[in-house]
């Protein structure tokens, strides 16, 4: 921990800290372009020069290249250094097009700031400027190469940090060019970060082009709700419209970056189709009318059937506020326990996973970057939790071994070992890992009871093709120093997470650090688990509806049709209800069927609390008040030519308010912290992790590791799994992301394809599908044989797909 003096002020920093970072700790911002905390130093731009007056180094040096050392005396205002900085910035500006008035970076441009702070205000060069051709990089990122100052941040980020190769640097000397070998859509799902890291306007946010300057925007810290990781965002809005997400630094969760799904998902909030008015029987009504009618009709039903006749359906995308009030509605009124997902299989895995987590074995996303081995079972990061893939890449760059065990051909932007194991075999696979970890050479102190159990485990575990490989990996895990264990919660069965927990607990005894990381199906799945009826399943609810026991269903921010596979059955059940109340901010298959519809606010208007996949409590601040964008009401003219007292389109209220209206009628947002305290019996602060009560710390069930797969061995399994684009219900409304969503396709092992008579590129028309569904066949031998992998996609006729599957199986 050296202490050094910078501009006459002492500062003590950890070993290995660069002088430029040490200065930041004193609030001194030394000019920089190429240095970026996530990308490190390369010493390219040469503007961070400072004077070293005393100590081990003397003279003018680049502050991003020099490690802080004891006794250093640094002057950032050393005249020589100031002079050199000024000249270097002048050189950087030689070719700059001076197009700041029409540059979207203007106002938050590092180059603008540094040019002025560096003291270069007057142009002396009058010669010709070097120019470049720009490229079309797809719908997300705008390219304007002439503004480049060659800091190499983009190429370092894109290639080294993210592991994608289609954008980089070519040429030498003044001909260096940052772009693709030819124009085309960027392949990385992290490409939007280019707009954040480029210190000038070479890469700017394309969808929000020419919309405003940074100071025009209303900006607020928020949370990404487009997967369970909960990355930190800054939302920018203007004219009552959210128009940009930027990554907000979060040392525990996302670091400096976010994925493109999260960055470009906001369009749903201002889409023209957004339902903004209350509806009764499909006809517009005032909010008061709809709310009153809702209360009255629910009260009437309650009178007839008792509280059991009313069921509540929440979702994983609602805020904790909404989820908590739904749960309270149940406790106060005795209505059925709210159910938060129509995908029971996932709910079962989630609860067994979260019952495995506790205060000591949970790890944060950025901690994975420091792991030396990461084992992923039934998890496909790029589709389910994209930023996890980036964390894995950082681990791998640092020498970590990454192992994926999955029926799907998991691809990652880094080297990894993949072991294809069919979905039914995942639990058995983990059992083999455990057995490997318990090889005789390992000294684990086991008590007699444990020894017995392991003996049974060894006997019970059936052989699977990859057994030997898995055992070797299990054995290798015991020599790791910092292993991390990742387990998905949509593909594996409920036995897998607890077995992973067991494996982690075993390995924990011999390593320095280890932990569990479970990506969850939705942004607030963790919240639903904590506050709602974590065990409330949808199937019994549906049965109760069909049996006429449930007469009224209140659905809050959930499109059941995208979660529940049997569309016809669901439709018929809903049809049989006396009352279907739907509250949502997006149009869906279910909003159209509502007897009473109440429009809800989005996260941009309502804000709210969310628990991410590790249970971290995070807050989204409201950014805008709501209402139709002035750009829309005025047809582009400002001010709008319609004068009224309220804000047009401003009807929606936060979902929790409607729910509250059914019970106590409060109008202020509920304080979720006491509610969480109640549920979890422990206090929690924003940004911190809640700890779940260690519910079941029991020996995990080992039923499935012995039993063979269901059905015949040569069977086919359909796996619908989350894809980067097109699967998440809100982001799916983004038109720019729709451009990036690949054709709907099925991926199979070539053996399976042969059995089915399929060839790569075949298009299979699914019979009787509405809308008509065509599936493109892709072969990938990294998939487990027998698996038919399709992406989860909103609006696809899943019933027809399943019917077709059943038909294939029957043949």
């Amino acid at each position, binding site marked *: 921990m050296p202490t050094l003096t910078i501009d006459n002020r002492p500062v003590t920093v950890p070993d290995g800290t660069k002088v430029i970072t040490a200065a930041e700790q004193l609030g001194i911002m030394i000019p920089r372009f190429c240095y970026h905390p996530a990308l490190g130093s390369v010493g*390219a731009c*040469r503007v961070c020069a400072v004077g070293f007056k005393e100590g081990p180094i003397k003279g003018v040096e680049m502050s991003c290249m020099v490690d802080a050392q004891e006794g250093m005396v640094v002057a950032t205002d050393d005249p020589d250094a100031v002079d050199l900085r000024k000249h*270097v910035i002048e050189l950087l500006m030689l070719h700059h097009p001076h197009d700041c008035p029409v540059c979207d970076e203007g106002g938050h441009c590092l180059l603008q700031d540094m040019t002025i702070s560096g003291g270069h205000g007057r142009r002396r060069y009058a010669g010709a400027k070097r120019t470049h051709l720009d490229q079309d990089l797809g719908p997300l990122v705008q390219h304007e190469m002439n503004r480049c100052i*060659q800091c190499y941040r983009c190429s370092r980020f894109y290639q080294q940090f993210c592991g994608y190769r289609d954008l980089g*640097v070519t*040429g*030498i000397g*003044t001909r260096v060019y940052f772009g693709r070998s030819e124009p085309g859509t960027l392949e990385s799902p992290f490409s939007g970060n280019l707009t954040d890291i480029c210190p000038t306007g070479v890469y700017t946010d394309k969808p929000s082009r020419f919309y405003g300057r940074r100071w025009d925007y209303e900006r607020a810290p928020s949370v990404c709700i487009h997967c369970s990781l909960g990355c930190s965002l800054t939302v920018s809005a203007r004219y009552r419209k959210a128009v940009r997400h930027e990554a907000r630094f979060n040392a525990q969760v996302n670091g400096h970056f976010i994925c493109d799904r999260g960055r470009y998902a906001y369009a749903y909030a201002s889409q023209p189709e957004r339902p903004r008015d209350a509806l009764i029987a499909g006809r517009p009504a005032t909010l008061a009318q709809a709310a009153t009618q809702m209360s009255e009709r629910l009260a009437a039903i309650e009178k007839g059937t008792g509280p059991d006749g009313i069921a509540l359906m929440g979702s994983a995308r609602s805020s904790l506020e909404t989820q908590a009030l739904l749960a309270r509605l149940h406790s106060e009124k005795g209505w059925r326990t709210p159910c938060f997902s129509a995908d029971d299989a996932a709910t079962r895995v989630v609860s067994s996973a979260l019952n495995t987590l506790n205060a000591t074995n949970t790890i944060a996303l950025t901690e994975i970057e420091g792991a030396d081995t990461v084992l992923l079972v039934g998890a496909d990061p790029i589709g389910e939790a994209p930023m996890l893939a980036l964390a894995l890449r950082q681990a791998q760059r640092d020498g970590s071994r990454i192992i994926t065990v999955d029926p799907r051909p998991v691809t990652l932007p880094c080297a990894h070992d993949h072991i294809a194991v069919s979905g039914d075999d995942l639990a058995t696979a983990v059992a083999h890992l455990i057995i490997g970890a318990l090889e005789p050479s390992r000294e684990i102190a086991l008590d007699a009871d444990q020894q017995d159990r392991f003996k049974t485990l060894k006997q019970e575990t059936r052989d699977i093709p990859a057994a030997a490989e898995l055992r070797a990996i299990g054995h290798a895990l015991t020599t790791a120093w910092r292993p991390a264990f990742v387990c998905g919660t949509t593909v594996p069965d409920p036995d897998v997470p607890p077995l992973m927990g067991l494996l982690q607990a075993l390995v924990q005894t011999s390593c320095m650090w280890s932990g569990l990381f479970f990506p969850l199906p939705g942004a607030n799945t963790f919240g639903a688990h904590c506050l709602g009826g974590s065990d409330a399943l949808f199937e019994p609810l549906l049965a109760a509806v069909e049996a006429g026991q449930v007469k009224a269903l209140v659905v809050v921010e959930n499109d059941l049709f995208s979660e529940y596979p049997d569309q016809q059955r669901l439709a018929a059940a809903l049809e049989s209800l006396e009352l279907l109340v739907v509250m949502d901010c997006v149009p869906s298959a279910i909003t159209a069927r509502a007897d009473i519809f109440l429009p809800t606010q989005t996260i941009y208007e309502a804000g709210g609390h969310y628990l991410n996949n590790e249970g971290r409590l995070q807050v989204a601040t409201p950014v805008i008040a709501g209402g139709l964008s002035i750009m829309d009401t005025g047809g582009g003219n400002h001010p709008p030519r319609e004068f009224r007292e309220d804000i047009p389109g401003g009807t929606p209220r936060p979902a929790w308010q409607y729910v509250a209206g059914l019970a106590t009628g409060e109008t202020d947002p509920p304080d979720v912290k006491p509610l969480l305290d109640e549920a979890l019996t422990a206090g929690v602060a924003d940004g911190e992790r809640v700890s779940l009560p260690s519910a079941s710390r029991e020996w995990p069930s080992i039923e499935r590791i012995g039993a063979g797969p269901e059905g015949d061995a040569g069977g086919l399994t359909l796996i619908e799994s989350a894809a980067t684009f097109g699967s998440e219900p809100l982001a799916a409304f983004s038109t720019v992301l729709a451009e990036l969503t690949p054709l709907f396709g099925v991926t199979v092992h070539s053996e399976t394809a042969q059995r089915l008579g399929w060839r790569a590129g075949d298009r299979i028309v699914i019979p009787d599908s509405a809308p008509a569904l065509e599936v493109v066949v892709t072969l990938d031998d990294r998939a487990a044989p027998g698996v038919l992998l399709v992406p989860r996609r909103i609006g696809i006729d899943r019933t027809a797909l399943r019917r077709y599957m059943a038909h294939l199986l029957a043949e």
Partner: protein
Amino acid sequence: MGRMTVAELERIKTEHAERMAFTDKTYLLLCGGTGCHATGSLKVKDALLDALEQAELGATVDVIETGCNGFCAMGPILVVHPGDIFYQKLKVKDMAEVVQSHLVEGKPVERLLYKDPAAKKRIPVQSDIPFFAHQMPRALRNKGIIDPEQIDDYIARDGYRGAARALLELGPDDIIEEMKISGMRGRGGAGFPTGMKWAFAKASPSDLKYVLCNADEGDPGAFMDRSILEADPHAVLEGMVIAAKAIDAHKGYIYARTEYPLAIKRLDLAIRQATEYGLLGEDIFGSGFGFEIEIYQGAGAFVCGEETALMRSIEGRRGMPRPRPPFPAHKGLWEKPTILNNVETFANVPQIVRKGGAWYASVGTDTSKGTKVFAISGDVNNIGLVEVPMGTSLRSIIYDIGGGIPKKRKFKAVQLGGPSGGCVPEAHLDTPVDFEAIAKVGAIMGSGGVIVMDENTCMVDMARFFMDFIQEESCGKCTPCREGTRRQLQILEKICNGDGEPGDIDTLEALSDTIRETALCGLGQTGPNPVLSTLRYFRDEFEAHIHEKRCPAKRCVSLLSFEVDTEKCTKCGACYRACPVDAVEWKKKELARIDLEKCIQCMTCFDKCRFDAIY
């Protein structure tokens, strides 16, 4: 063949003793360097073999294709042993005569012998020719003698005896000590003491270490390393084995530019032969020590000769330098301790270890020991490759060896160290070849490129040429080098075009300061040298261009009027005869006149006029 032993080396040497002494047969040593290949030596060789066959001399005469002889300007070259008779500028049609007259009749062919321009007489014996007489071959000791494609030839000249000593008799510290005693300093340009470099790498603990050889040779006008590789590839391999032993490395790479196909071919062959003999690979000489070498071909970027860029390039990444520290001796190739030395540095190592550091240090100056190879080019009579003891004066290199300036012109300056170096004017020509002495006059020893310039050279234009090279080859990583050198080039172009303005020299100097102070690697840090050193000695030429719009050397086309000075014109008509487009009007005993409509400004007449009458 199995494992190599010292006895076996000795046996090979004895077996080839007569061949090396040229006592068993007549040997025709035909230069097979790239220079002679270019002037047609391969065809000459065919003709020679044909002639020998016809004369039925196959049994008593051997033709050997050697590496570069050094006297490239005289190629194709043939040396006949015994006798050391030097034939130059051979043509296919000469070969029958050489065979008939020299080999059959015993009479050397007079007209094909070297003719000394000063004494105006033929000198038959190679070692009597001034170009060779003043040299001291050490790194080049085998050039023109051995067949570089025969490992036995190398062994017969005590090859691999240094490696044997290093592996069987010396410890790493002894080797490093020997290198330190020799005073060897890196021949790649910077002159860093080799022994010290190895000591650092030896002291860095690591499971893996690397030995790299820098055969990138990117300086314009330099071909020392290429010639060594073509003439004596095993010397470099042996040097690397010794270095590997000193630092405990087991893997080496030779980074050679793809533009050196012959050098790469011979290296590749040498590596295969050495591996077959057990001189590379596992358990060399039964010492338990193993080392292997791979060739990595560079694509020809100048900056890839810089050590950190070179290592990135071998790693398969973009060849861009990174700041030091960490130094390669601690973190080099793949972040492992690595030493990188120049081809010539390695070529000297075997002898140093075999004969001892003190032997090597017996010649040279206080701080610069041994010999140095130079590639002389430009406006000098004897263009070629020379090796002289340190301390030799520049004047001796240019006049005694180089034979002075052609066409009776005056010497103006000599550029040392390529684009990173500087020029030395007449006044400093007695400067000895010594790292410090050369630096004192504003140039650098560099890797050994010597470009001689006569009075017709415009120094502003010369600075422009080197600046063009620098800015073209800047890797583009750091701002001052990428933008600053280009800015300097633009100013120099402006001055040469006659658009120079009063503040230009100041701007050039200010830019030079910024670039030198802030550039990341050696390329940028030394980039302004051509500007600074020409400004130091030839500032008046800059000023003439800027203020008087005049190019004193008459090279900058924009500043010339293509008119004939009636006072100076002697009416000789040389310009009239030379003009390729008949733009000169002249009749006997009349003044010449140039028709500017027809003139294409090729400047042929300027070169032809001996009275400086065209301006």
